[in-house]
Every structure is written in structure tokens, then in C-alpha cells.
């Protein structure tokens, strides 16, 4: 009878004691408590900062330049692969082109805009060409690189001449300049206006009501005072170059991934 009483008491004691907890369970619990506390105190962890993406409308321009390199340098497949990789890096580095701050911007500074109206701080075509000129010597033979340099400079000259010739002829037509004045104006544009861009001139061919804002220091070198006054009487507007238009005039080949 006594033994039965003791056994009931033992069973009762066993029931009252808590279940033994393993060390692993203790750790999990501690972590959960720690997390719960942290959720109350700590801020949400910040997602990693997104890498800025270069504007999409630059891609066709880079692809076109790569096609130009392919055409004039005839690189091997391996060389071309490395060139495309460098072009990709260069494109990714072009995020700074969207910074609208341009030092020394004047009324005649040529402005470039993307399809969504983004303002660019420099001529993207020129930037792509300069970048290409930088990485190509590391990836091509000297002979191939010289070919690119030569072709690129001839292309540049053609474009500069096209823009300068047209503008000089436009001013001549509007102000009835002499032949020698026209020739001199062309020279001044070619030599002292490196930012002049044929793409910008197209805007004035398409909008004949307006004339471009030509830097006055250049006009002063050739025009008489009366001619300068007469030029000022035309409606001068600085039309931005819009990028990303005329996709049908671009080659289909997409080198960039």
C-alpha cells in the first residue's frame, strides 16, 4: 500500500516536470528570439544598390560602330569576341552621359536627347568612337588598328565637311556672301568648330524656317558688321539632336548581348 502511494507520487512529479529540451532545440529557439527582437529594433536590410543601366538608345550606335570595326579591320572571331566585350564595358561606363551638367554650355552648344527626352551631356557618337579608339589597340594587330584609325579619321572628315559645307552655303545663300567669304567660313567651321555635327545640321535641313545658332566668335571672323546684323534677323533656334530615331536606317546585326 505504501509502495503504491510512492509510485503515484513519483508519477505525479514526473508529470509536473517539463520535457527535457535538446541543445539544438535551444539554439533554434535562441535564434528565433534574437530574430524577433531584431525585427523590432533593426531596420529592414537595404537591397544591394542597383547598377545604373546605360540608356537603351545607345545600343544601336555601339552596334553600328562594331559593324564598322568588323568591316574595316576584318578581325578574327576571337578578336571580335574580345572587341564586343570591351564595347559592352564601354557602354556600361556611359551612364555618366546622362548627367545634364555641362560646363560652359552656351546658346550654341549642340544638345543631344534620348527618345524619352533625356538630356545628354555630350555627343554619344563621338564618345563611342573615342572609347573604341582606346580599347582597340589592345585587341588588334597594329596593322588592323592603323586601318581603323585611318578609316575612322576619313569618315570623321567626310562628316565634318558635310556639316561645314552645308552651313557655309546656307549662310552664303541667306546673306549673299562672296565666294571668298564662303570659302573662309567653311575653313573656320572645319578648324574651329570641332563640336559641329552633321546630325545636328539635318535638323535645319528639315526645318528651313529656322537657322542654327552659330557661335558668334566664328561669324565675326568672316562677316561684316552689317552681315552679322542681317544674320541676327533670321529666326535662330537651337534644335536638339534626337537619338533613337530612324531605326530602319541601322544595320540589323546586334553584336551586343
Amino acid at each position: 500500500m505504501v509502495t503504491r502511494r510512492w509510485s503515484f507520487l513519483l508519477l505525479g512529479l514526473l508529470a509536473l516536470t517539463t520535457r527535457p529540451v535538446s541543445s539544438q532545440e535551444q539554439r533554434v529557439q535562441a535564434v528565433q528570439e534574437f530574430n524577433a527582437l531584431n525585427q523590432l529594433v533593426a531596420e529592414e536590410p537595404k537591397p544591394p544598390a542597383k547598377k545604373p543601366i546605360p540608356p537603351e538608345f545607345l545600343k544601336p550606335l555601339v552596334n553600328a560602330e562594331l559593324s564598322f570595326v568588323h568591316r574595316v579591320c576584318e578581325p578574327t572571331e576571337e578578336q571580335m569576341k574580345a572587341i564586343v566585350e570591351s564595347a559592352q564595358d564601354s557602354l556600361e561606363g556611359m551612364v555618366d552621359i546622362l548627367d545634364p551638367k555641362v560646363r560652359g554650355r552656351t546658346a550654341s552648344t549642340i544638345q543631344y536627347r534620348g527618345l524619352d527626352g533625356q538630356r545628354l551631356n555630350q555627343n554619344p557618337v563621338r564618345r563611342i568612337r573615342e572609347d573604341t579608339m582606346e580599347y582597340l589597340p589592345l585587341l588588334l594587330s597594329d596593322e588592323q588598328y592603323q586601318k581603323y584609325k585611318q578609316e575612322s579619321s576619313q569618315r570623321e572628315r567626310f562628316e565634318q565637311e558635310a556639316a561645314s559645307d552645308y552651313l557655309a552655303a546656307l549662310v552664303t545663300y541667306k546673306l549673299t556672301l562672296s565666294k571668298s567669304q564662303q570659302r573662309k567660313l567653311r575653313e573656320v567651321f572645319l578648324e574651329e568648330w570641332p563640336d559641329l555635327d552633321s546630325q545636328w545640321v539635318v535638323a535645319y535641313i528639315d526645318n528651313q524656317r529656322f537657322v542654327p545658332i552659330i557661335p558668334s566668335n566664328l561669324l565675326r571672323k568672316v562677316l561684316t558688321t552689317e552681315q552679322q546684323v542681317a544674320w541676327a534677323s533670321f529666326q535662330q533656334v537651337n534644335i536638339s539632336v534626337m537619338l533613337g530615331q530612324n531605326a530602319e536606317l541601322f544595320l540589323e546585326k546586334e553584336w551586343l548581348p
Partner: protein
Amino acid sequence: MNTNKLLTWSLATFLGSIVAVSTHRCEAQNQISLAQFDSWIFQTAGRDEEQCRRGLQNKIELQFVRIEQSTPLTESQKDCLRLAGQGDIKRFFDRVNQAREKFLRMEHKDNNANINEAYQLASPLQQELSQGIFGDGSLMEKATRYVMTDDQTQQILERELEQSRVMMELQGKVFLSTIGRGMALTAKQQRELQGHFQKKIQQLGNIPATEGRSSVSGSLFIMWLVELANDDDSSHFDDEQMVVIKRLENRANDAIPMLKLRGLVK
């Protein structure tokens, strides 16, 4: 309590006065004077009537220089043209005075509407000035045709045609330099195409008029590229570039009726 009321009243008075002052300022800012209206018209011509008149007189003399690049003018011819030029200036300022009268008659109820209306009055006159008042349809142009001998007229027309050809050739060069970027044309290709365009322009019996020349010329340039690419012995473009040219073919075909209408293609 009284202090609170006093404070509220003072605040309300203060805010009310600010609103009243700011409304008054807006009205003042929206009203424009006749001098401002004039400056809209003459903005590219010296900002006021006097300077504008002087500029227009100079342009008459500039017209003589332009004509004399083709053929010499006698003094009596110059006098006649000067008179016609004065007529154009008078006609222009008659329109300016009409616009001024309308502007002064405007009621000043809704100032914003007035500004828009005033701008609508000034804008065409300003554009007329920018484009030049001695062009097509002007007395000067009519008088030029009237006082010139047949030989002189022929010389002027020949020079104008030559100038138009030159401008079109230069447009062609700009066109090639820009499409060259997308099509990755080499400088050699660009120079060959430029030569081709020059030949084609020389063969044109007439040149697109200045008005709308850019779109007509652009259509012609595309058509010439397509024609060249379709030549059996053509090696001007590589396969990739040919894809672009084929894409442009539809554009060229669409433009043919318009070019035929203008007598630029057979």
C-alpha cells in the same frame, strides 16, 4: 478669449492682404504693353520698328547684291526695284498697324486669354519677317521679273538653278554622312555615293523648290540608293547593308507618285 480672437483676426487680415497683393501682382504681370507686343513682332529684327525698318532697307540693297552676282543692274532698274521694295515694307507695316489696332481694342477681362490672342496676332508677322518679305509673291519679286531684260532673267534663273543644285548636293552629302552612321559606311563608300548623287542631280531637269526641298530630296536620295543597289553589277554595298537598302525600297516606291507629280522622275 479676447486675445485669441484678436490673434485670429490679425492672422486673417495678414493672410488676406497677402492674397490681395499677390492677385494684384499677377494681374499686373499678365498685362502687356504695346511696346512688349511690338517686341514680339520685331524680336529678330532689332526689337523695335525703327531698327526693323533700317534692317529691311538693308535687305533691299542686299537683293541688289544677290541679283548682281548673276547680272549687272542699271541705276534705273535699281530705282524701280527700290520702289517695289518700299511697297513691300509699306504693306508689311500696314499689317503691323492693323495688328496693333486689334491688340489695343482687346478687352482686359481675362488677361491670360489676351496674352494668347496677342501672341496669335504677333506671331505670323514675326515669322513673315524671319522668312523675308521680299520673297515669292512680293512686289520686289514681281518688279524684278518686270524690269529685267530676257537675257538678265535667263542669267538669274540659271544662277538660281545652279545654287539650288549646289544646295541639293550638300544636302546629299549630309544625308550620306548621317545614314553612314547606322549603315557603317566607309568613307570610300560615302565618296562613291556622293559622286553618284552629284551625277543624278546634274541630270535633273528641275530642282525641288526651296519649300519642302528637304523631304523631296530625301525621297530622291533613297530612290537613288535603291536603284544603285539593284544594279546587276553593283558592288557598292555588302549583304548586311543590302538588308537596310531593301528595307528602304518600300519608302522609295511610296514616294514615286509624288516625285512624278513634281516632274522629278519619269
